C-alpha cells in the first residue's frame, strides 16, 4: 500500500458576502449533518487480515461548508484471501441552505478473492444521500462490476450493475452478497445508504456431533468476511 493521502476543506466562510447566507442557514438548519465513508477493501479471515483500506472518512462539516477526503493505494495482497490494485476511495459532503448531501465512491481493480473463486476487472461502489425541503433520499447509481465472475460463472459482461442484495452460495466456503445495500434513515428528515459491492461471508459448520449413532446437526457460523468496494453516505436535518 502506498500513495495514501487525505485532504479536506472545511471551516469558516471565506467571503464577507457569504456572511448573510451563513447567518440565515444557522437559523433554518442548525441541526443538519452529513456523513460519508469509503474504502476499497476489508479482509478478516483465518488466512489473513487487512483493515479498511484505503479509508476515506468525511471530516465534520458545519455552517454552510463542505469537505472532501480521499485515499488511494496502488495494490493490496492478503495471500490466499484477496489481491487487488488501483484502489481509490473518495467521500465528500456539504451543508447548504436549500440542499445538503454526501456522496462517496470506492473502487478496486484486478480483484481476485480466495484464489480465483471470485474475480472482477474492476468494482465501483457509488452512493449519494441528499436532503431538501421535500424529503431525504439516497441511491447507489453508478455502482457496477466489470467482468465479474463468481465460482466460474460470469455474472457481468463488461461494466454492468447487479440487482441489490444478490446472494450466491459458495459451497464449502459460505456465501457472497453482491451489491449489498444497507439503507438507513426515515426518508423524511434523514437518509443514508451503505453499499458493499462484494461481501463474502466465510462460514464453517460447528457443533455437529454423533454419539452412539445419534447425530446432532451443527450450525453454520461466520468465521470471517471479505469486502470489496464499500461506500457510505448519510444526511439528516
Amino acid at each position: 500500500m502506498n500513495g495514501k493521502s487525505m485532504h479536506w476543506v472545511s471551516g469558516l466562510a471565506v467571503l464577507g458576502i457569504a456572511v448573510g447566507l451563513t447567518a440565515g442557514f444557522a437559523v433554518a438548519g442548525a441541526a443538519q449533518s452529513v456523513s460519508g465513508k469509503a474504502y476499497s477493501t476489508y479482509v478478516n479471515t483465518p488466512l489473513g487480515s487487512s483493515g479498511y483500506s484505503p479509508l476515506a472518512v468525511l471530516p465534520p462539516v458545519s455552517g454552510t461548508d463542505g469537505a472532501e477526503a480521499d485515499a488511494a493505494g496502488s495494490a493490496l495482497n492478503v495471500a490466499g484471501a484477496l489481491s487487488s490494485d488501483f484502489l481509490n476511495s473518495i467521500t465528500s459532503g456539504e451543508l447548504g441552505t436549500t440542499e445538503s448531501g454526501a456522496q462517496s465512491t470506492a473502487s478496486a481493480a484486478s480483484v481476485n478473492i480466495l484464489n480465483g473463486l471470485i474475480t472482477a476487472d474492476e468494482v465501483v461502489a457509488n452512493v449519494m444521500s441528499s436532503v431538501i425541503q421535500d424529503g431525504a433520499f439516497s441511491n447507489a447509481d453508478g455502482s457496477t462490476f466489470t467482468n465479474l465472475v463468481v465460482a466460474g460463472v460470469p455474472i457481468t459482461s463488461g461494466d454492468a450493475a447487479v440487482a441489490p442484495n444478490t446472494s450466491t452460495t459458495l459451497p464449502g466456503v459460505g456465501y457472497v452478497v453482491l451489491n449489498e445495500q444497507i439503507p438507513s434513515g426515515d426518508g423524511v428528515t434523514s437518509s443514508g445508504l451503505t453499499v458493499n459491492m462484494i461481501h463474502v461471508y466465510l462460514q464453517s459448520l460447528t457443533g455437529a456431533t454423533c454419539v452412539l449413532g445419534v447425530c446432532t446437526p451443527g450450525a453454520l457460523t461466520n468465521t470471517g468476511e471479505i469486502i470489496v468496494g464499500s461506500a457510505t453516505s448519510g444526511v439528516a436535518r
Partner: protein
Amino acid sequence: MLTHTILRLGPGLAAAALLAMACQDSTPSTSVKGKPNFWAGPPPQCPAGKWTGGGRIDPPGNYDAVDETSGGMPPRYSDGLPPMNGKVTFGFNVFLAADQNTGQCFVQKGEIQVNHHPARVAWHVSIHNGVDDFDNATVFAAVFPDNSGRGFCVVVGLPETFMTARVNANRGFEKVQFEACDNDRGQRQNSRTDAMRWRASGSASGDGGDTGLTYLTGGNIVEHGGP
C-alpha cells in the same frame, strides 16, 4: 495574452504550451480583460460560492451537449485534446473568493480528486490560502448559468494558468481543468442532470484528454452557500 487556443496544438504540444504560458501570466490583476474571446458568453461572475460533489461519469455516454459551451467554454476536443473516455470517478470541494481589485474569481481553498479508471490514472489538486499547493499559483475560477437554464456551472483552473495536479501520488504533475454543473438546485436530486468535465494535459500521466461535459452516472454536485 493567453487564450484557449493553446490547447489546439495537439496533445503533445499542448502540455508544453500549457506550462510555458502559465508562467507568462499568473496574477489576478492582468487576466480578466485579456479573455474576451474565451469568455464569449456571459462575463465571469464571482458570487459567494462553495461547491462540493462527487460521483461518476462515463464519457462519451451521457454527453451534455446543451450545456457544454455555457459561459463561453470551448466544445469538447476543440482545443486539440483527445477524447478521455470510460469510467471516471471524482470528488471535490472548492470555496471561491473574489479578487478585491479585479473582481475575478479564484479558489480560496479546495481539493479535487479525479480518477480515470481505464488508464489507472489519479489526479489530485490541492489549494490552500488562494494558491495551488503544487505550483504556488493562483487558481482562477468562474461561475455562470448553464445554457439549459436549469442551474449554474463552475470552472476551476481558467486558461491563465489552468491548475496543477499531482498524478498518481508519485508520477509528477500536469496542468488540468475541472468543471461541474449543478442543474437540480434545491430539487429532488437526479444524477443525470448534474454534469462534470475534466481536461488534462497528459504531460506527466500520458493520459491527456477531455471528457467533455458529461451528465453524472451517479453522485451529486451541490452549489451551497452561494446565491
